[in-house]
């Protein structure tokens, strides 16, 4: 069945090069002993050392972790409910509400939440960022859970019902354990989406609630420095680990169908 077409392979290889070369450059220069991201001078760990002595950066990292953990946890619960509900009934409103935040440009969610938070006199900070992150994470978890349910054998639930299990018992003993990989993968995805988010955080963060992406943004606005490379490399490493685990749990989820 394999149709080897040299031209196709070469063009694909070039696209892979295009996808990876920039990221490789970021990582390589994070170990470069020069302030300029221009030429290789020599190997050093010093940019990572500087990072761990940078108070603002550490505070931002802490904020990012707190926000991502809480947002992912809440979004996982709400997204799982939404995913199950979407599978069971064709509620049009629910589908629109779950999918629209994913389909719309991020900036719109950012500015409209900013207007909402200010209107209700909420101080912008960790809480407002979390509320915003939960909003865009629900849909991704819901899709992950929904994908898992549709691959589930409905006979299992029916069999349990025939054997006299109650709706709740059925859910707890059959549906939930079978859905678990999908739920966990969805939750991990929500965690990375939250920790990586820049646009929506940009509009919903207040003074003193900087996150890693916001910190990177304010640094690159001023200058390109190897410290940014170092923090970028660490952030990529974290995402890589989380996404690898998620894709082991449920390969279809990470492919973003």
């Amino acid at each position, binding site marked *: *069945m*394999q149709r080897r*077409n040299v031209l*196709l392979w070469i*063009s694909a290889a070039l*696209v892979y090069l*295009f*996808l*990876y070369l*920039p*990221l490789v450059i*970021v990582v390589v*220069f994070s170990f470069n002993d020069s302030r*300029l*991201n*221009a*030429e290789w001078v020599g190997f050093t760990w010093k940019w990572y050392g500087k990072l761990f002595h940078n108070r603002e950066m550490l505070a931002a990292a802490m904020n990012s972790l707190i926000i991502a953990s809480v947002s992912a946890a809440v979004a996982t619960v709400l997204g799982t*409910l*939404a995913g199950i*509900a*979407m599978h*069971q*009934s064709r*509620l049009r*409103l*629910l589908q629109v*509400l779950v999918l629209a*935040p994913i*389909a*719309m*440009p*991020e*900036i*719109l969610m950012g500015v*409209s939440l900013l*207007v*909402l938070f*200010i*209107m209700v006199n909420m101080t912008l900070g960790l809480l407002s960022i979390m509320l915003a992150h*939960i*909003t865009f994470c*629900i849909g991704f978890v*819901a899709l992950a859970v929904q994908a898992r349910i549709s691959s589930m054998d409905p006979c299992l*639930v029916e069999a349990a019902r025939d054997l006299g299990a109650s*709706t709740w018992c059925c859910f707890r003993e059959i549906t939930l354990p079978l859905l678990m990989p999908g739920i966990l993968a969805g939750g991990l995805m929500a965690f990375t989406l939250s920790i*990586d988010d*820049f*646009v929506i955080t940009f509009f919903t963060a207040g003074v003193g609630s900087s996150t890693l*992406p916001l910190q990177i943004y304010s640094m*690159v606005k001023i200058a*390109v420095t190897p410290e940014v490379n170092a923090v*970028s490399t660490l*952030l990529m490493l974290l*995402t890589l680990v989380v*996404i690898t685990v998620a894709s082991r749990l449920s*390969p279809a989820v*990470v*492919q*973003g*169908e």
Partner: protein
Amino acid sequence: MQGKSWYKYLLSLPPMAYLLIFFAAPTLIMLFASFRYAGEYGGLAPWYLHENGRLTLDLTLENWQRLLGTDIYLRLFLKSIGYAVVTTLICMLMGYPLALMIARSGRKSRDLLLLLVILPFWSNFLVRIYAWMIIFSPVGALTRMLNGVLDLFGAGPITLMFSPTAMLVCLVYVHLPFMVLPLYANLEKHDLDLLDAAQDLGAGKWRQFWLITWPLSLSGVIAGSILVFIPVLGMFAIPDLLGGIDGIMIGNVIKQQFMESRDWPFGSVLSMVLTVTAVAVVLLGSRLGQRR
């Protein structure tokens, strides 16, 4: 679990309530804000007035008139749509061969090849922009090499940073996986026997592609195009960091209205136009996709 319809609604209630409050309501509030006056110190002015003990509405069409009164914003929108269209086309030209190659390779390598497309897509958005800031930087190897070559031909030095070219490269880079994934999902399902049949009937590779693979893949092309087009249309970070003055898109002006000039009503007007455009594109795309 059938027959108990209340139970289904109970499940959907919490997520639905959350999304109504934090997604639907803010959108409506923004529509309302587009008819309000700007506050004296930024933000929004009150939408009602106390006059002689009576409440009167204090709303205006001014913001919308400002949008329509000049062609600046129309041109800005057209420029943003232009960037989105060009990015989508380049993503398609680059993504199609890649998706086809992955879909036609062996079962085992397929998963790995696909994972290799997904990984950069999951790395941080700003990091991916930053990578191109390094590549295009005036002290970077690429700029110096290009200028070295240009110098041989007696041409003056150029800068890559802060140019529409730099912006387009980065826009394509960030959104390419959005094109590859739906295309792959489509191409992978094709029945290869059709190609064998065409081959037996004497069709060359090129004819096979245009008469079979391409028409069958159109729904994937449409899905991928929507997924690229919409985020590019609302982009502000890439023009902000790589585009320079010529690169300003509608997203930058929205950001500016909300964060810098703090004219929220006018920012809301621009956001509503962007919302309507995005919704129209999604609806049009799904209509086209269904017809396939």
